[in-house]
């Protein structure tokens, strides 16, 4: 066998080994979580509040809490993010200032989420006096999601061929009409994909809601924006660090992890399906 063929086989097998290691980690991780957590999942687990100091019962309030935190934060972040992206893409001047804004946004995207938690506590909980509440948590998560949504949206707008913009303007449309009727509809699927990915991220975050929204233990569901809420990721943290009955709490934590993981994975799956359909339609 020639030396070139040897190198070829060495290279291929090295990559094969890397792939195996990576997937082994992933499989071990999934196996560990699901084998430990799946057993505890039942209709009661999903529909009951925690009982007896988190040693029994279910996680229903945490599911509801995570649902509302996620929905509200995306409802806040999506319009702000998309409009910011439109401004940056189509109107922003001068160019150097927009570059600075983009750098700021990218920096924001890279900040550890615990810092968002501190920011949310300082601004929403203390300064604006929302206290620890659903709305304070949702706003904090919205600030976290915004850079992701802005980047995804601007990227989506930039990927719309300039031909479309020229065609629209050449037909006598104004800049505003061009954005509303051509640019946004064409970019929308990619904006949606970006948004769905950030939904997954927001749903799984613990640190930003730790000081702003989450409570260890709540029997009732949130009734208003100013209520504290339970949340799935924070519930796992609580189960593992609080209370004295590890033997009952740890399986519940794994069960909660299964629910959270399934939630985030199914959200990502939706994103992948949407992206697949868009790519199939795209012919320009």
């Amino acid at each position, binding site marked *: 066998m020639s030396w070139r063929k040897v190198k070829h086989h060495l290279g291929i097998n090295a990559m094969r080994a890397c792939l195996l290691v990576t997937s082994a980690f992933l499989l071990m991780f999934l196996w560990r979580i699901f084998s430990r957590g799946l057993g505890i999942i039942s209709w009661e687990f999903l529909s009951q509040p925690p009982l007896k100091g988190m040693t029994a019962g279910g996680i229903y309030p945490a599911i509801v809490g995570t649902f509302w935190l996620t929905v509200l934060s995306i409802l806040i972040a999506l319009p702000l993010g998309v409009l910011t992206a439109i401004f940056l893409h189509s109107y922003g001047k001068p160019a150097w200032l927009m570059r600075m804004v983009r750098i700021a946004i990218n920096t924001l995207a890279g900040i550890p989420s615990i810092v968002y938690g501190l920011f949310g506590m300082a601004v929403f909980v203390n300064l604006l006096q929302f206290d620890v509440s659903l709305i304070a948590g949702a706003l904090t998560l919205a600030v976290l999601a915004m850079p992701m949504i802005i980047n995804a949206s601007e990227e989506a707008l930039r990927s719309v061929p300039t031909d*479309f913009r020229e*065609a*629209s303007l*050449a*037909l*006598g*449309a104004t800049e505003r009409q061009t954005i509303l009727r051509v640019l946004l509809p*064409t970019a929308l699927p990619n904006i949606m994909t970006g948004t769905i990915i950030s939904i997954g991220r927001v749903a799984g975050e613990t640190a930003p809601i730790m000081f702003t929204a989450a409570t260890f233990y709540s029997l009732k569901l949130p009734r208003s924006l100013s209520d504290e809420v339970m949340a799935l990721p924070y519930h796992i943290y609580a189960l593992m660090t609080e209370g004295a009955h590890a033997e009952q709490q740890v399986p519940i934590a794994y069960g909660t992890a299964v629910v959270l993981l399934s939630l985030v994975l199914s959200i990502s799956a939706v994103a992948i399906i949407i992206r697949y359909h868009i790519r199939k*339609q*795209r012919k320009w």
Partner: protein
Amino acid sequence: MVKRQLHTEQLNLWFGNNHVLHDVNLSIEQKKITAMIGPSGCGKSTLLRTFNRMNDLIADTKVTGKVLLDGEDIYHPKADVTRIRSKVGMVFQKPNPFPKSIFNNVAYGLVVQGKYSRMDIQDRVEKSLKAAWLWDEVKHRLHDSAMSLSGGQQQRLCIARALANDPEVILLDEPTSALDPQSTAKIEELCLELKNEVTILIVTHNIAQAGRISDYIAFMYLGELVEFGETNRVFTVPQDKRTEAYLTGVFG
């Protein structure tokens, strides 16, 4: 009686420090086809794009001199750019229908003007598709995506889209350079038909095409309008050496 439709006086244009058009004086007759030819980078596309102010989209563009459309200075500070663009249609090099239905593509220019009723729009869409010789091919699938059409059909759709606004002038920027010979022939024939209604300006790299369809030739070189005249005359007795050299293929 021929009428002057488009007219430039001492037109100069800069992109930043790049002086692209030099003192262009040109008169375009109504309902004729004028072909603009010249080597790449000579400014013919830029000149075409001054007639519907598409160069405005490029940052740092400076224009001096006058461009008159039916006697109206379209670079006047108070000129309404969107109205000018609805009077001067444009078809681009690469067919660029919107990712919308066939119907909505043609209706677009009418819808954005916001002054037509739904019935009006339907009538005009049908009329424009017929005028662009596309109606019979698409009348049963007006609500299919325009992206499902062939390249030649897409380009005729773009022509229909431009016609829907009932323009006085249509600017064609190398409209057939991305098409196969059959589609090209169809578009050329279509141009000859359309000149009964509208004034046509066409930029082309294809000298034979200019010869086949145009009434007038404008030859541009390095940002100057070198020669302008009736197509037969320019092709048989070019007055400028550079025109002759270009037409005979010495450079290009």
